[in-house]
């Protein structure tokens, strides 16, 4: 028999109200111990919450949800208390004093929901992100996963893999048994390529973690191009030391900025000098190169001709004469607020585009890793004509995806096989 767990399930106090959740076999008796008679299922009732000695702690709404049709699959009680720190602490203290109750460990409610089959793994992970989500964009992404967008996508990929594997297996296992002639000479390559293209596109999109951390905007360019001034203007504080001496920024500087509901992680980098004798500056340049490589958006403040692919090209120091460049996407200067606002607008446009395409299908790191493993296996399948190896690689590719959904891959393939072909003598 599992323990009964409880936790504050709303935000940290102080707040207007605080929701305490109790889940497990003793949830109902806990509610009765604290608030007297348990209200009818799913009906909010106002009760006085008292400690073991009978001292009133708060007036709270009490809700009782009998299992298994609850979020965790167990009996569930919610106490909606006033959200002061002292009240919450007192009610938590009173709950902990009840027999069989203990505070929940992080993620334990979700884990129980998963174990009791209330949600699948993809949903569980989406839910965890939702609880941490701070912005509207992140919330939408998390919601999509919780509602099974990722689960549905993975299930769809598995179905397609099963169908390909079934046709390959039909040739391997039933070559002799007639009636697979319509599978004869089946070339899995086009279907595999299509799947791979989709996976690589999905993998190229930023992950859920990335969205949660913020879109990485990296400012880069040659020394003394005005990168740090721009960084400060965007961050709106003197985070970077700005001097007119080339090579001042020797390491990378980062700042998290929220703008128009979109989280950004801004990075200022060392100027990319072609050669330097300064060891510290050289390390800074190496780090800048690494930051550029991991950027979701790159703001390039150098000559357009040598801009990295996909970069937003900025003509810096727009307040000074003779720096304007016709090849730039935008002219900016830290000293001209209008140009900084224009840059923000451009960033928001690009960010929304990125999020609109990928928002519904952002993967968590673990899902990404599984998909990357599957893609690596399928890449090998695409590069051989030995059906035996194709089948082996399909099996290897299927396993991490089936793992995400907790499914049996072989059985799914056999179902596809026998559904499609009239096999056997």
């Amino acid at each position: 028999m599992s323990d009964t767990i409880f936790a504050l399930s709303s935000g940290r106090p102080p707040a207007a109200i605080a929701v305490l959740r109790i889940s497990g076999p003793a949830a109902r008796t806990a509610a009765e111990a604290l608030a007297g008679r348990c209200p009818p299922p799913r009906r909010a009732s106002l009760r006085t919450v008292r400690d073991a000695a009978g001292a009133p702690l708060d007036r709270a709404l009490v809700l009782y949800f009998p299992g298994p049709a609850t979020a965790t699959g167990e009996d569930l009680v919610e106490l909606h208390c006033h959200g002061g720190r002292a009240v919450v602490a007192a009610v938590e203290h009173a709950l902990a004093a009840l027999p069989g109750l203990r505070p929940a460990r992080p993620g334990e409610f979700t884990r129980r929901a998963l174990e009791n089959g209330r949600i699948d793994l993809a949903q569980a992970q989406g839910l965890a992100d939702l609880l941490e989500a701070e912005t509207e964009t992140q919330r939408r992404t998390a919601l999509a996963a919780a509602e099974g967008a990722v689960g549905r996508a993975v299930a769809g990929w598995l179905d397609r893999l099963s169908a390909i594997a079934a046709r390959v297996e039909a040739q391997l296992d039933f070559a002799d048994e007639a009636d697979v002639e319509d599978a004869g000479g089946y070339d899995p390559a086009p279907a595999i390529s299509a799947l791979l293209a989709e996976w690589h596109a999905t993998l190229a999109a930023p992950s859920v973690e990335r969205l949660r951390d913020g879109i990485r905007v990296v400012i880069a360019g040659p020394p003394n191009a005005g990168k740090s001034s721009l960084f400060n203007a965007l961050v709106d504080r003197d985070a970077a030391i700005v001097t007119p001496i080339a090579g001042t920024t020797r390491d990378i500087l980062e700042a998290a900025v929220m703008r128009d509901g979109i989280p950004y992680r801004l990075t200022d980098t060392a100027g990319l000098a072609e050669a330097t004798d300064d060891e510290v500056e050289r390390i800074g340049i190496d780090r800048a190169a690494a930051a550029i490589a991991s950027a979701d958006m790159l703001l390039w403040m150098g000559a357009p001709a040598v801009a990295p692919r996909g970069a937003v090209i900025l003509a810096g120091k727009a307040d000074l004469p003779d720096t304007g460049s016709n090849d730039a996407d935008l002219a900016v200067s830290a000293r001209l607020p209008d140009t900084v606002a224009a840059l923000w607008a451009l960033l928001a446009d690009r960010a929304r585009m990125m999020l609109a395409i990928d928002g519904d299908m952002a993967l968590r790191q673990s899902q990404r890793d599984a998909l990357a493993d599957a893609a690596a296996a399928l890449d090998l399948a695409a590069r051989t004509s030995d059906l035996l190896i194709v089948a082996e690689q399909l099996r290897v590719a299927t396993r991490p995806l089936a793992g995400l959904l907790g499914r049996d891959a072989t059985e799914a393939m056999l179902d596809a096989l026998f559904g499609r072909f009239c096999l056997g003598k």
Partner: protein
Amino acid sequence: MFHVKQFDVIVVGGGHAGTEAAAAAARRGARVALLSQSGAQIGTMSCNPSIGGLGKGHLVREVDALDGLMARAADAGAIHYRMLNRSKGLAVQGPRIQADRRRYRAAIHDLLTATPNLTIVEGEAAALTLDHDRLTGVRLADNSTITAPAVVLATGTFLGGRIYRGSEREAGGRVGERPALELGEQLRSLGLPMRRLKTGTPPRLDGRTIDWARLTPQPSDDDPWRMSPMTYGPRLPQLACAVTRTNIATHDIIRAGLDNSPLFSGAIEGQGPRYCPSIEDKVHRFGDRDGHQIFLEPEGLDDTTVYPNGISTSLATDVQIAMVRSVEGLERAVITVPGYAVEYDHLDPRALDHRLALAALPGLFCAGQINGTTGYEEAAAQGLIAGLNAAAVARDDAPVIFDRASAYVGVMIDDLVLQGVSEPYRMLTARAEYRLALRADNAETRLSALGEAANCLSEQRRAHVARRMGQRDNLRAGQVAVSEVDPDIAREVEEDARYAPYLARQAEEIDRMRRDGAIAIPTGAALHTIAGLSNEMIERLTTAAPTTLDEASRVRGVTPAALAALWLHARKSA
């Protein structure tokens, strides 16, 4: 009652599972009684006259590597050899032969006769005898008793067997033979989980009435490969098979006859195999196809019977005649025995452990169709494992278990005892995740040491293996030329090298599996003490009764979260 005969192991049933079980137990030194309704029927091929194929050929070679009978008897009776998937990698090449039924049966008899410690007892098993809850032996229909501490049930389709053809019904496991009624009732009364399955067989044709000249012949392979590497000497004369196909007219006749088909009238409840469907199933499920292939397989050198593989049916006899005669080359064909479907009892194999022993009644083993499988080869491989382990029980020896990475027989038994069956189980190479390593051609390399350790190899086999293992070692070390070793060994070593990178990757997977296989998990009531296991998970784990984390990971529907809970529990209790 005359006197009580005493043995170490009694095997009930003389089919492919029973004969392998009896011989395997005897090879391990047990005194064995092989009990059969009719001694003459021992080793009968009830259905098609072929042995081997994809997945199935792998099983035959594995049984052979453990010194079983099937491959050698197949060679002795083979009148047609065909290596399937010849153009593909060795891992999916499937050796298959057509056997002369009479010669195959005679070869099985010879091999059994030559097996020491084995006695054939003619009689019908009526019931298991129990002393309280302990198994003591078998009571025969004539009320005599044979005693043994271990019994292997290999009763095929005879448990509660019922034959269907059109509106005709007959009790029996094979046409013309009695079913085992009392035994079936006793198993049900023991509270064992019994279910129904069905299978079928096509009509047999008189080969002299087939117009062979109009059909495409399929000759036997030219190169002189054999089922068993122990077989030497010339082959029997080889016969060609022929291929024809059904057509629209055939399908119309079948559709018109469905009214009194027991499959479609609901008379048969048991689920049939998806991969060996009756012709009426094929026409019904794949209605858009304009034809289905039929392989015409001769049944013997001095037997005119032909087995039309592909048209298993339980339609009424007159419909069968019309159906056959609508096919090219069969316009004047005469049916000698009409096809029929048979529905039979089987045990939910999840009640068994990996030795094929029944948890509920120590000493009782089950092998073959009684466990929900289909096919001679699947039956033989289970018989072998049940026999080796029944001998172990009687003689207090070590159990013999093969895991999924060692053998197809390991894959099959693991599937059966953990997943159960929803239709007759057939071996497929696709079921073996370590397919690249488990090839039909390397069974000897994979299993000889395990057979040696189980003490089930004859003197002759051990000498044969020692010689060939030496060849492999020398060839790998570059000490001999390819031309100096047996040709099959040269191919085997070459194929090993070809797939080496994939085999290395699989080796890591296998390590992981075996590591998890060493983590014991609780069973039965103890599952309820594990935090975080839902009732649904407990139910699934209770039915399949996995004993290790690795086994639990393959029980259908067991979630990663449940596995995590089991793992955490195992860590805590370690």
